[in-house]
């Protein structure tokens, strides 16, 4: 037969609580117990508040560049909720909400953006890797982490997050391809927020969906309304079940939107329409869920008021902890380079010099060196 069909596929989109507040009972029923729902809502509000506080900290010079997570909370939160507590979470930098749910202390994320590596020293029992700055690189680590679990016969899987922009990087491709061909249980969760700094999504992927990236690998894939916590929970739960039972990877495109600037160093008004942002504000995962909970009588204004108070306290305490942690030792960065410091590096550390006469001052024995009073740089 000269022309035959060798492949066909289709991709589904899942939505449960849509942007108009319509809830699909069939898919949504029993998905999230009410008690949990309230907690999840509270977690999103806390995360949003941290975002606002972090923004102000940056503006007042108390923190470096900070990328707000605003608008994207449901994706990582729904995933962290649907996964087992010892599944790996391998984030980029817009997954605060999921990390906090897992148990990463808020101050660690703050410390990271305050320019302190101790913010990355995440306790191993949390099974989270630190925020990833270089785009597109952490998915390979997730694949390796999940592979190690498979190698050891553990039931653990990995879920890694990345943006639409990240799917343009070669490493994204290699991670998906390794996982698909070597049967490694990873969930690839793409937070499609339509922008990579100022570059619109169509420059990263002009195909109708990002979910179809997975077709290249024969990988299962689904598109999900990423601003709908229910849909996210369902998609991740299904994907996790599939991945855990088959050992194969699964792709999820969580369609969302970056409501804020890319980071505090960015001014999104330079490149995107206010109308677009306004439109997406109406699809905010938090307001959507609040309306739903109110309708179901799970929530009311007084609860909202007391939540607001609690959250303010919680975030303020985290900021306090981050800001009052003792400054790192000025030579800290030498000590964590290797398990054991090489002799050469020890000389640099102990002398805080690199020039030979500084490292080995004995060469100057008997020589008179003029001392300058050099004000040390301010800290």
């Amino acid at each position, binding site marked *: 037969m000269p022309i035959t069909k060798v492949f066909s596929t289709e991709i589904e989109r899942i939505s449960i609580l849509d942007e108009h507040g319509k809830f699909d009972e069939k898919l949504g029923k029993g998905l999230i117990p009410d008690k949990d729902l309230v907690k999840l809502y509270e977690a999103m509000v806390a995360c949003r508040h941290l975002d606002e506080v972090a923004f102000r900290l940056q503006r007042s010079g108390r923190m*470096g*560049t900070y990328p707000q997570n605003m608008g994207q909370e449901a994706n990582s939160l729904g995933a962290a909720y649907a996964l087992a507590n010892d599944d790996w979470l391998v984030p980029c930098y817009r997954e605060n909400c999921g990390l906090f749910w897992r148990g990463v202390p808020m101050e660690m994320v703050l410390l*990271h*953006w*305050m*320019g*302190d*590596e101790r913010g990355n020293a995440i306790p191993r029992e949390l099974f989270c890797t630190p925020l990833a*700055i*270089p*785009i*597109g690189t952490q998915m390979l680590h997730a694949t390796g982490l999940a592979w190690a679990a498979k190698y050891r016969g553990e039931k653990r899987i990995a879920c890694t997050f990345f943006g639409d*922009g*990240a799917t*343009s*990087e*070669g*490493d994204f491709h290699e991670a998906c391809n390794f996982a698909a061909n070597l049967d490694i249980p990873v969930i690839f969760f793409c937070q499609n927020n339509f922008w*990579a*700094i*100022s*570059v619109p999504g169509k*420059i*990263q992927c002009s195909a109708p969906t990002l979910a179809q990236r997975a077709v290249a690998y024969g990988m299962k894939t689904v598109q999900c309304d990423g601003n709908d916590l229910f849909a996210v929970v369902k998609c991740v739960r299904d994907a996790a079940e599939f991945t855990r039972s088959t050992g194969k990877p699964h792709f999820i495109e969580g369609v969302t939107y970056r409501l804020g600037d890319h980071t505090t*160093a*960015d001014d999104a008004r*330079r*490149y995107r329409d206010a109308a677009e942002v306004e439109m997406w504000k109406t699809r905010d995962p938090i307001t959507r869920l609040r309306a739903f909970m109110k309708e179901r009588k799970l929530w009311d204004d007084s609860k909202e008021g007391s939540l607001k108070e609690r959250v303010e306290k919680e975030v303020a305490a985290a900021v306090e902890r981050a800001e009052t942690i003792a*400054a*790192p030792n*000025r*030579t*800290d*960065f*030498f000590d964590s*380079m290797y398990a054991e410091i090489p002799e*050469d*590096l020890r000389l*640099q*550390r102990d002398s*805080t*010099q*690199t*020039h*030979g*006469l*500084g490292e080995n001052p004995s*060469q*100057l024995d008997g*020589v*008179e*060196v*003029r*001392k*300058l009073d*050099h*004000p*040390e*740089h301010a*800290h």
Partner: protein
Amino acid sequence: MANLTLVQAINLALVQEMEKDDRVIILGEDVGPNGGVFRVTEGLHKRFGAHRVVDSPLAESGIIGTSIGLAMAGLRPVPEIQFDGFLGPAYDQLCSHAARMRTRTRGAFTVPITVRVPVGGGIHAPELHSDSPESIYAHQPGMKVVMPSSPYDAKGLLISSIRDPDPVMFFEPKRIYRAFREEVPEDEYVIPLGRARVVCEGGEMTVVSWGASVVQCMQAIERTGRSIELIDLRTIYPFDMAAVEASVKKTGRCVIVHEAPKTCGFGAEISARIMERCFLHLEAPVQRVAGFDTVMPYYKLELDYLPDASRIARAIEETAAY
């Protein structure tokens, strides 16, 4: 003549070369309507259009690899890599392809690209936003490596780089993007690649540096009050050994200053060359004030990492006393 920052001087050079030569095209992440995250390409998208100032997918190997193809076809791409630390994914296309194309085809194909990259520390940026990779690319035969330390030089060097028939890594010290202004002629001028600049003359000692460190060196020299000859290399490869040699033969002492880690930094090469060329003239061992052999720490400690005027001045004093 206008009083410009380094960012403005580079922007001006880009505008003028693009006006003059329609083979020049710019591509990279956020270089379009946003004008680059440091605003170096500000206004170019509007002025020259989306076909000449192209927002690319987020993929550094792709940016360089397609630039190679553009250049093989006769264009003069000026790709931007957003930060030093994101050169990594492009390393292969740069070193295995761009740098080798001319020799592997015995000249049938060439790759006249100018890769603009903001480099170096000191701006309180996140991880992988503060590296100084010049010696990596200086080790790659076929590459040229340029790093200006002032607005005036930046304009003249960038124009030379764009016109150069071979691939050039054009490293922009982001710490001094807006740190000071300088008179920069509106008229076109070039500064030839491979020629160092004597920032100030002196007889007691030679200090060799490049990029943002030149500024720290000037501070340190002032602090010591000594008669010191400061050489700004400007081009890392091909480097102006003649200038270094002449100076060190005159002074007999030398301190080299750079931000990159000491081990296998370009300072090692300069020191080794001085050994080879000026042995009998040396009155003290050549010293290197450099980044430590550690990863650049996050910003709380970055000033403890970067060579500063104190460390430089101390090395100068110790070398003088030796």
